[in-house]
Structures are given as structure tokens and as C-alpha cells.
């Protein structure tokens, strides 16, 4: 272990850099969690021993806190075990290739049983409203900051806006993780520096601050697209299934209280309401509607996954 002691970082920054290097290639959210934990702990340690230099503290920490390699190994190990425990979840089983045609059919309709598709659908539907909200905050904040910049109040206003925007980014991250399962940082972006000037410098130097604002601006157009696509898909699917069922019931001569003269056109044909053609056509309509609905759910799940990745790129610092 002597070799490790010799390589032990001499400052908190060096420690965090080695830890980041040791975690290279891991999930960005995990890296952010690990760095935040380490920084909080090391700073607390330094604060607890005010008489000593950072270098002395870090050297004595070598034994108690663990080298960057040890700590990185612990995070990776836990993440691996947690991932393994989650493995039988529908999300990961859905990504396995189908081995038989039966499997393919099961997989196609399995989307109904996958909670991810419903949560993704929810995310896409509310994304219009969160998108409007984020966009408004971002545009209002940026333009007011710019407008007020000629007055002294512009500076604190801008700083406050950046703070709000980072907080919203974190909340959005939690939401996206809950809905799509994409792992996002579990820690709020704490500026782990004691001086407020250092803290500000960190925040403004952090690329994530700016990508978060970009995300919020992007949220509106994306929300409009997601909302339109899902609502159209749902409306088409349900709009085929509902009337299909009605026509079928009527073709079976069930009294639904419909106007007997009401002539329904399906697929360009207007069969006799109680004819066998009407039954067949209505079945085709229902089948088509179900297929459309299933495809919409697949699309929603896929869009949710893509959105999760985008959110991670823009809202998690290590990914930038």
C-alpha cells in the first residue's frame, strides 16, 4: 500500500480529479454522486481540523477515507449489484432480442405490461406543461437579467435566476429518472465551497449551468412535439377501437339505441348495418386500432428513453 500512499493526492481538487479518472467510463450520474460525496466528506474533514493544512489532512485521510481507487471500486461494486438486482425488471427484459416469432408477438404486445411505457407516456403528456413552465422561467430570467443589467439589481437577479434554474434542472432530473428509469444524480448540485465568491465562480464555470438553461429552452418545442405525437397516436388508436366496437355490436343486431338510419362508412365502404361485411370490417377496424395503440406505446417508450438520455447529457455535469 506504500505505492498508493505515495500517489495519494495532496489537495481536495487533486483527490476529486483522481476519483473522476478512476471512475472513467462509469455512469455520469454515479460519477457526480461519488464526487459530491467525496467533496462533502473531505471538506468536512478539513473543517474539523482547522489547524492543519489541506495537504496534511489529505495525507492522514489516506488510511481512513480510502484512496480514489478504493472509493471508485466501492461505487462501481454497489452500482453493479443494484443493477443486477434490477435485472429481471420489464425494462431490461424488453431489450432482449426475441428468440421466436411467438416471442416477437409477445414482445410487441408486452409493451402494455411494461410500466415504463405508461410512465413514459405520462412524461410525454406533461412535458408540454413543464416545457411551457421551464421555457417561461428561462426566457423571463434571461431577458430580465439582460434588461436589468444596466441597474445594480441586475446582478443579484441574474444570480438568483441561475440558482432557480439549477434547482429546476435537478427536480426535472428526478422526474425524468422516475418516469424513464434513466439514472440521474441523487444529490442536489451542492456548491461544496465555503466562500460565496468561490461558490459563484464554480457555478458560472460549470458547463452544466448553461446546458441546463439550454435544456429549459429546448423543453418547450420538445414538449409540443411529444404532446402532439402522443395525443395524435392515442386519439387515432382509441378513435378506431371505440367506433369499431360500436359498429360490431350493431352488426350483431344488438340494440344500442343508435339511429337505425345512421349509416356508417368504414374504409370507404358503407355496408348494411347488420351485415356480415359490417362485422368483418368492424373487426378489422378494432385490430387496426389496437395495433396503432400498441405502436404508439412503443413510440412513447422509445421517446421517453431518448428524452432520458438527452436530459442526462444536459443536466448531469460529467456527461458534458
Amino acid at each position, binding site marked *: 500500500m506504500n505505492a498508493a500512499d505515495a500517489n495519494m493526492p495532496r489537495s481536495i481538487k487533486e483527490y476529486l480529479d483522481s476519483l473522476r479518472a478512476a471512475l472513467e467510463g462509469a455512469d455520469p450520474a454515479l460519477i457526480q454522486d461519488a464526487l459530491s*460525496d467525496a467533496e462533502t*466528506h473531505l471538506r*468536512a*474533514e478539513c*473543517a474539523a481540523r482547522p489547524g492543519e493544512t489541506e495537504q496534511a489532512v489529505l495525507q492522514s485521510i489516506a*488510511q481512513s477515507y*480510502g484512496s480514489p481507487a478504493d472509493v471508485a471500486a466501492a461505487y462501481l461494486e454497489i*452500482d453493479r449489484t443494484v443493477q443486477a438486482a434490477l435485472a429481471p425488471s420489464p425494462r431490461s427484459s424488453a431489450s432482449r432480442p426475441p428468440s421466436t416469432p411467438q416471442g416477437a408477438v409477445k414482445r410487441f404486445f408486452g409493451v402494455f405490461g411494461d410500466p415504463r411505457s405508461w410512465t413514459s407516456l405520462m412524461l410525454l403528456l406533461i412535458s408540454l406543461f413543464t416545457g411551457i413552465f421551464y421555457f417561461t422561467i428561462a426566457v423571463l430570467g434571461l431577458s430580465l437579467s439582460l434588461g436589468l443589467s444596466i441597474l445594480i439589481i441586475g446582478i443579484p437577479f441574474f444570480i438568483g435566476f441561475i440558482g432557480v434554474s439549477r434547482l429546476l434542472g435537478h427536480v426535472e432530473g428526478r422526474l425524468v429518472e422516475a418516469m424513464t428509469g434513466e439514472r440521474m444524480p441523487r444529490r442536489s448540485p451542492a456548491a461544496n*465551497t465555503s466562500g460565496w465568491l468561490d461558490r459563484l465562480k464554480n457555478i458560472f464555470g460549470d458547463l452544466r449551468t448553461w446546458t441546463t438553461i439550454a435544456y429549459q429552452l429546448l423543453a418547450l418545442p420538445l414538449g409540443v412535439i411529444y404532446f402532439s405525437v402522443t395525443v395524435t397516436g392515442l386519439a387515432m388508436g382509441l378513435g378506431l377501437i371505440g367506433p369499431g366496437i360500436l359498429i360490431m355490436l350493431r352488426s350483431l343486431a344488438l340494440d344500442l339505441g343508435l339511429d337505425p338510419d345512421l349509416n356508417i362508412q368504414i374504409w370507404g365502404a358503407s355496408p348494411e348495418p347488420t351485415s356480415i361485411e359490417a362485422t368483418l370490417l368492424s373487426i378489422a377496424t378494432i385490430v387496426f386500432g389496437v395495433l396503432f395503440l400498441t405502436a404508439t406505446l412503443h413510440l412513447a417508450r422509445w421517446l421517453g428513453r431518448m428524452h432520458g438520455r438527452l436530459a442526462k447529457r444536459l443536466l448531469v455535469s460529467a456527461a458534458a
Partner: protein
Amino acid sequence: MSELARKFQRDLNAGLVALVLLGVLAESDEDLYGYDIAKRLQRAREGDPLFKEGTIYPVLRSLAASGWLSSRIVPSYSGPPRRYYRITDEGRAVLAEWRSVWRETRDFVDQFTGPSPLTEASSQDA
């Protein structure tokens, strides 16, 4: 401690850290934050710590993700904000179960490796 002994200790720790953390939080009347827990563990033992402090944080996080701990963030005047942990009822149930598993395991292992003449003799052989 030799390198081999260290590796053995690490392998043992894989499950034990979670057990100890649940135990520490179950014993405590107040909520504790990571650094505080680390220092409690350090104080409980002279010499080299059994767990590296850095390795308890991911375990705390995974325990919280399992719903066995609840946590809240409290801003601190002296430094970065602290995340305080508290054990949940579910966590206590898990701890009770794990505790009995640990006792049984320990007693079983002790039967073969305890301070008996048999072990003394074999360790002298080695």
C-alpha cells in the same frame, strides 16, 4: 495487515457495511449524516478502520434507494450542506432479519475458527 488480509477484509465487508450502517442508525436517537457516521465507526475501534470511510457513502445511498433509510438535506454554516439519514420502519425490519442471519453465521463460523485447541494447532502448522 498484509495485502491478502486486506483483500479478505474487503470481501467480508461487502455485506457487513450495510448491516453496520443500519445498526448505527437504529441505535441513534437523532438523524446522522455521512461524516458523523464515519467518525462514530472510527471512534469505535482503535487502529486501522475496518471500513474505508469513502466506501460507506455508496452503501448509504443504496440503502436509501431501497427505502430502508430516509434522508433530508440540511444546509450547514461551516461547510457544504449535509444529508441526514434516519432508519425507516422497513429498515428496522430488514435489520432485525439481517441481525439474526449475522448471529447465526458468526456462531457457525466461530465453531470452526474460534479459540479452540483445534484452531490453535492448525494455525501453528501454518
